[in-house]
């Protein structure tokens, strides 16, 4: 009887070991996405705008690229931003110990999901009628501009970890504050009907991307490091 039990236990342990290795591989892929995502997104947006005749990045919104040549790439960009933000929220999960930090993680996840909604519901097409999708798109933009700075403010205390934690926390506050200032600038442009929304959107995105990059690189490999230690101990 014991001769049968021994291999069974061994197989179970082996499967658990392999499952952890797969988990490690996935967390590695996630960290790669959060570190490389922002740069890949900026490059992809350059590619999309270079295909579109008459596109002026200071005037035209990022969403409007969906209706131009190669617009599918911009739709893909929205999905990629959503996936990167969701991956970042997952990467920061071990740090979300306080209630405020958990709300911050949720706000980051909501921001990511909102970008997916932007991909599903495109903005109003030029010369086209006002559609429900366009209305959803417009409302979702407001959700993003509210939730992203909120996530930065709520996550700032949580990222105060390690030797340069003070810097990470201070930068999170600064990103949230700059985001709020840019949104106020957007409200001013809206009142004045000034054609500078493209520049404003790009600055808002770049502000977010830099924060994502800093946090992603600072915490990248954390799960992998812990997992490798555990596997080494077990083997």
């Amino acid at each position, binding site marked *: 009887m014991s001769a049968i039990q021994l291999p069974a236990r061994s197989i179970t342990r082996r499967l658990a070991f392999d499952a952890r290795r797969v988990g490690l591989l996935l967390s590695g892929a996630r960290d790669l996405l959060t570190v490389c995502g922002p740069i890949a997104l*900026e490059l992809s947006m350059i590619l999309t705008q270079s295909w579109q005749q*008459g*596109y002026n990045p200071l*005037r035209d919104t990022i969403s409007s690229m969906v209706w131009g040549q190669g617009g599918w790439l911009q739709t893909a960009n929205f999905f990629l931003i959503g996936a990167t933000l969701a991956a970042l929220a997952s990467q920061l999960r071990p740090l979300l110990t306080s209630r405020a930090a958990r709300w911050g993680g949720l706000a980051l996840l909501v921001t990511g999901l909102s970008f997916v909604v932007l991909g599903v519901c495109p903005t109003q097409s030029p*010369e086209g009628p006002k559609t429900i999708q366009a209305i959803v798109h417009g409302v979702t933009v407001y959700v993003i501009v509210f939730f992203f700075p909120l996530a930065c403010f709520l996550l700032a205390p949580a990222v105060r970890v390690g030797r340069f934690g003070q810097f990470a926390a201070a930068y999170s506050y600064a990103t949230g504050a700059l985001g709020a200032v840019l949104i106020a600038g957007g409200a001013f442009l809206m009142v004045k009907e000034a054609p*500078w929304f493209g520049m404003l959107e*790009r600055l808002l995105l770049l502000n977010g991307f830099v924060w994502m990059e800093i946090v992603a690189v600072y915490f990248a490999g954390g799960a992998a490091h812990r997992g490798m230690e555990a596997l080494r101990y077990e083997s």
Partner: protein
Amino acid sequence: MRARLIVMGILIAVLLAIGAFSLALGASVPERTSVRVKSSQFAGQPFTLEQADAAKGGVITLTLGSSSATGRWQEIAEVSDPNVVEQTHNKLLLPEAPAISGEQQSQSWTFRTLKEGSTTVRIQSEPAQAGGQEPRTFELALVVVKK
């Protein structure tokens, strides 16, 4: 940790450089050109023509007054060369916020200029709402230049 900070610094520098490049690629200061036409200009004449110059990469705002004589204007403008300008918005301006002084109601169209060239923008009034009168036609002859 030091290596991680160096990598972080390099990636941030790359990100900022790409971001600045994306802002500069094809960028030009978006100038606004406004064309406003009072409804009295449409009185007694079915066809009205205006001319305007606009800058490439800019925005054109066309505002037409509407009265019982003109009726409501159609929301979508006909653009002879859509490679030169493209309509982006249309809105009805209510009497509380008239865009043209002295007008009861007006409508506004926004276009973005795409490349240098000439084109015409034609807008007609809704035939059913013009009080049985002949529909009015407004035409804007546009020349888009690089500034």
